[in-house]
């Protein structure tokens, strides 16, 4: 950030205007105002994204990268423009370093099955952390079972932040990969990802960052982080489901074998051999989610238009307010209290089971996630089967926090 930007007053989000962009927020749930506090599972979509996807089908749809006709060219241009938008969003060096996929999960699987299969063997180790989403655990276990390398786990402290001393101790010459989240979906911890990457690099390890939960909240700069791979999902960034991206450092992507075979990823096929396209097309077999990917570009434009500083300031305000209000409830225990944290509040309410809390809040029009949040090792770390998770986004307000507070009071009354 340069001096000129720093001198500007803190930017503000015009939340009322943002809310007007999200048609679903006008829905009534059991006759009550929808209070959507589950953006960490999947965010709602602004009209700009919905319109972008509809526009493709109404005005410019055709298969891409193959037709000689006008429409196909137009669809191809829009698809490739989304790639450039995504490059800018992640501040990657080159547009070709962006591979379009279904989402973060597919990104991790691609790296595991392509890079991992070629580069990991018995005697090697990889490092994950306790607070990973299952999608950054299971693909590595599947590969471990085939190749026989070791999986090491960087623990977290009682606040839910990665124990950096313990992490450092795990790093030795056997470690070939560090795959760690930028922001924990279950408890909101923002990890010191630059330091994590720097230490991994000192050991010569390749670094993959799971950015699924960070992308809607934080400014991302893959060059500044110094990672080799970064994955995120469109549906958490106010974009469509089934569209997401993998950033891969160019030299690594060039050296990696294709993952899936099919059309679009080849230059010449015969029964004796096939020749593959250049990166990124080498990794994009088959007809992709054309309209969804173009709409993903619209979602990233929407976020960038609001500005990451303004988003962060708004969400910090909501987080502080939520922690203060929920702190008024004696029997409420917040899980995950790291100093660096996204607007995600995971908690338990006395000995009331999270599913009962979730059902009662639902009848108040409040959507929260209950369960293990696809992060069972995190739940195990805090010795809980499940939590209630309220997660906030650009369209949430202090009024939403108040509604949550009232809903929790009602829950306590019912179980009194």
């Amino acid at each position, binding site marked *: 950030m340069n001096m000129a930007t720093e001198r500007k007053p803190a930017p503000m989000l015009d939340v009322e205007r943002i809310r007007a962009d999200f048609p679903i927020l006008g829905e009534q749930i059991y006759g009550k105002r929808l209070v959507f506090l589950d953006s960490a599972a999947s965010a709602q979509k602004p009209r700009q994204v919905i319109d972008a996807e509809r526009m493709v089908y109404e005005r410019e749809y055709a298969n891409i990268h193959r037709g000689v006709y006008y429409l196909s060219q137009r669809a191809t241009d829009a698809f490739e423009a989304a790639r450039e938008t995504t490059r800018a969003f992640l501040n990657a060096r080159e547009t070709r370093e962006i591979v379009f996929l279904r989402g973060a999960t597919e990104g991790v699987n691609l790296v595991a099955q392509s890079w991992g299969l070629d580069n990991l063997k018995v005697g090697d180790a990889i490092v994950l952390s306790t607070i990973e989403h299952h999608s950054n655990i299971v693909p590595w276990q599947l590969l471990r079972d085939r190749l026989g390398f070791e999986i090491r786990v960087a623990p977290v402290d009682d606040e839910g932040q990665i124990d950096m001393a313990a992490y450092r101790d795990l790093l030795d010459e056997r470690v070939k990969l560090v795959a760690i989240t930028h922001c924990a979906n279950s408890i909101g911890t923002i990890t010191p990802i630059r330091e994590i990457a720097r230490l991994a690099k000192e050991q010569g390890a390749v670094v993959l960052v799971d950015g699924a939960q960070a992308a809607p909240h934080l400014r991302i700069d893959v060059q500044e982080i110094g990672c080799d791979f970064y994955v995120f999902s469109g549906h958490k960034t106010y974009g469509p489901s089934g569209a997401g991206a993998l950033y891969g450092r160019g030299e690594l992507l060039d050296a990696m074998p294709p993952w899936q075979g099919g059309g679009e990823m080849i230059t010449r096929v015969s029964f004796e051999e096939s020749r593959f396209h250049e990166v990124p097309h080498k990794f994009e077999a088959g007809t992709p989610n054309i309209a969804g990917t173009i709409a993903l570009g619209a979602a990233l434009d929407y976020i960038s238009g609001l500005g990451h500083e303004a988003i962060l300031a708004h969400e910090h305000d909501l987080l502080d307010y939520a922690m203060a209000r929920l702190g008024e409830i004696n029997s409420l225990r917040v899980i995950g209290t790291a100093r660096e944290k996204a607007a995600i509040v995971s908690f338990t309410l006395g000995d009331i*089971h999270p599913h009962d809390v979730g059902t009662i809040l639902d009848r108040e029009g409040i959507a929260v996630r209950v369960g293990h949040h696809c992060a069972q090792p995190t739940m195990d770390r805090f010795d809980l089967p499940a939590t209630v998770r309220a997660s906030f986004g650009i369209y949430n307000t202090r009024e939403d926090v108040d509604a949550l507070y009232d809903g929790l009071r009602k829950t306590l009354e019912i*179980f009194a």
Partner: protein
Amino acid sequence: MFDLQDLYQEIIIDHSKRPRNFGALEGANRHAEGDNPLCGDQIKVHLIVEGDTVREARFEGRGCAISTASASVMTDTIKGKPVAEVKALFEQFHRLVTGEEEPSDDVLEVDRLGAFAGVRDYPMRVKCATLSWHTMNAALEGRDDPISTE
């Protein structure tokens, strides 16, 4: 539309907070384990079956209010009943909570099973109410593999 009170009736709150027949069962000759991976609910059902009769029933485990209350009421209900009647009740209870049968039947009312009729309005919670029953049924059938609602 059902009100929340129809789901969280007094009987359900009471049984969830003070579950009856909770704990291990000495002399049990039938056991089964049930698991609801969605909620993390786990339950063990222990039975003493003598001849054609369920003599004693207890349960262990942790779960939500609906699943705990359901296990508590169920164990109360089936004690002393013939196995055939217990199996018929299981079928009937299943129809009740999935909305296939109206909660007007005398048997359901007498045994307080009718209290669970509200679950039918919460499809995500039907499994919570039926977990203990499925597990009990597995115990009767002598199945060793854990029961899963998934």
